């Protein structure tokens, strides 16, 4: 028999953990789905086109920036990341800075949207939204604010319709899809590497079989990028915040956003993965939309490019590449600490992100 006594620290830790687990179970059973609200900043529906909706946010203060700003998220995940909760909301912060903010929401695409292409998103949905915002506000051109894949869409739009774009703000947007090779951080760029490892026929078969890129599948690929964090999320992280109501609600809202991941429309997914991630056609000047070449040098509007230095999904090198391709001389960058999602939801980045954007806009708002 061993004479070794049990480690008091470990025993206490175990007891503490058990107590918290019980508490967690009780508490979670009392929180309803409606209590965990995301994307709650008030907005008014202005236009609906198929499943796509155009909203105008209600102002929170006197308008300081006259040019309307249209926010476009990507098709992987939903825009609610930019409006997660009241004190962690890019949307709310921008409204607080006096912006006239609009949102194009892609809704919940499923197999019905299988045949939609990036051409449709850029030249139909975004174009219709821009025209509508112009009509409602009396402006000839507006500012586009793109997030991630939405940044690629707005970049393409700015190149194809330069007369409609007064300013282009991009956040965590990939432009050179092969520039992950220039990023020395091995935690960055797995998505680029993974996509390049696939055969083109694999992508076609995957999309054809499922009628799109399943959201659940993409979630699992994202989980691979932060493996231990994914594994300890529910058994350590959740327990850590369980006795702090505010932190628990943050955790639950984040979970709700992560779970709300519709399928990426099929043909658009093929373009995204093959034309852009594999063939890097955007920076090569070979990406075609609606029969027209997307020429980044035709972007004449001022550009603000914001990226996160610890972005493991879109390596900063992939975003930064835009500078050498755009036609405008008014090109600025803001690099912020944090990761892909942290840029929008962490308490640290809240002020700096919205302030950086609104000051840049205000300086060009003539």
């Amino acid at each position, binding site marked *: 028999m061993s004479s070794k006594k049990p*480690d008091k*620290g*470990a025993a206490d*830790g175990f007891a503490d953990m058990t107590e918290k687990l019980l508490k967690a179970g009780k508490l979670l059973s009392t929180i309803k789905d409606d209590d965990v609200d995301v994307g709650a900043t008030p907005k008014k*529906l*202005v*236009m*609906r*086109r*198929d499943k796509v*909706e*155009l909203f105008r946010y209600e102002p929170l203060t006197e308008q300081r920036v006259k040019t309307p700003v249209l926010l476009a998220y990507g098709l992987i995940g939903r825009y609610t990341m930019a409006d997660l909760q009241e004190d962690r909301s890019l949307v709310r912060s921008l409204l607080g800075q006096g912006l006239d903010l609009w949102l194009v929401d892609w809704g919940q695409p499923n*197999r*019905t*949207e*299988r*045949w*939609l292409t990036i051409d*449709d998103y850029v030249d*139909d949905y975004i174009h*219709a939204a821009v*025209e*509508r915002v112009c*009509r*409602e506000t009396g402006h000839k051109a507006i500012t586009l604010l793109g997030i991630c894949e939405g940044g690629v869409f707005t970049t393409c739009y700015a190149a194809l319709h330069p007369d409609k774009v007064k300013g282009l703000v991009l956040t965590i947007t990939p432009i050179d899809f092969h520039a992950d090779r220039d990023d020395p951080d*091995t*935690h960055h760029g*797995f998505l680029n*590497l*993974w996509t390049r*490892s*696939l*055969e083109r026929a*694999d992508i076609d*078969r*995957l999309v054809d*079989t*499922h*009628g799109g890129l399943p959201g659940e599948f993409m979630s699992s690929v994202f989980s*691979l*990028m*932060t*493996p*231990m*964090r994914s594994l*300890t999320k529910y058994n*350590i992280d959740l327990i850590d915040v369980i006795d702090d109501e505010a932190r628990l609600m943050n955790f639950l809202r984040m979970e709700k956003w992560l779970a709300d991941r519709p399928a990426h429309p099929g043909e658009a997914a093929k373009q995204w993965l093959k034309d852009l991630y594999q063939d890097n056609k955007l920076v090569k000047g070979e990406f075609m939309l609606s029969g027209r070449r997307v020429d980044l040098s035709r972007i004449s509007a001022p550009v603000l490019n914001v990226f996160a230095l610890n972005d493991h999904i879109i390596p900063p090198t992939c975003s930064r590449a835009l500078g050498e391709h755009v036609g405008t001389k008014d090109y600025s960058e803001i690099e912020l600490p944090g990761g892909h999602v942290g840029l929008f939801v962490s308490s640290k980045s809240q002020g700096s992100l919205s302030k950086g954007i609104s000051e840049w806009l205000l300086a060009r708002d003539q």
Partner: protein
Amino acid sequence: MAEQGEANPFGPLAAQWMETWRTMATAAAGLSENWSNSMLPFIMKRAAESGFGAAAGNDLAEAIERMAGGPRLADALDFDRKLANMAAAWSELQSKLAGYQVVASRPWMRAAQQYNEKKPQTGAGGDGAGWREQLGAWNELANEELIANQRSEEFLVAQKQLLQAATHFRNRQSEIADTIAAVLGIPTQRDFDDVTRQLTELRRELRALERRFDTSGEPGRGDA
């Protein structure tokens, strides 16, 4: 190989069983495939439709009866082939999954080895490092090893093969579903895709026409 054995003591036995099953299923599917790739099922189906030459006349009534009655001999054999194909695809999927798990399990062994070498030292008073500190050290090591493994060629190939096998299996499942749907007169996934394709193309044409003729700038279309 020692790592594989340690990672999963049932691994070799399970792999052997899987391989045996896979060989059997592949052979069965091969037989079915040879059968169905020949002209024989086609002729059998045609012959069955004509009553094997025994029922002369009244083709219309028989055709209606067949439409109501569902599959007959050759169709039934074709369905068997599809089931066998699905079983073979499932077996292939399990095989690729086992292969993937072997590759995915390796970094855990390396992390454990490193952790034993570097784990937080015991304090001067004899107390062990706190469990959170130990867990943190473990997480950091495991994370690095897992990420390094995911970037390896071996991992990327294993996950690609798993994805290919999963997609193939899903397609085989769909074949079965389509066959059943056809018997019951329910539209298949392919029918749905055809309809949505036409719908999407029609919308594009309509909107192109709208843009060509509408220069008024009046709000209206798509109003909420």
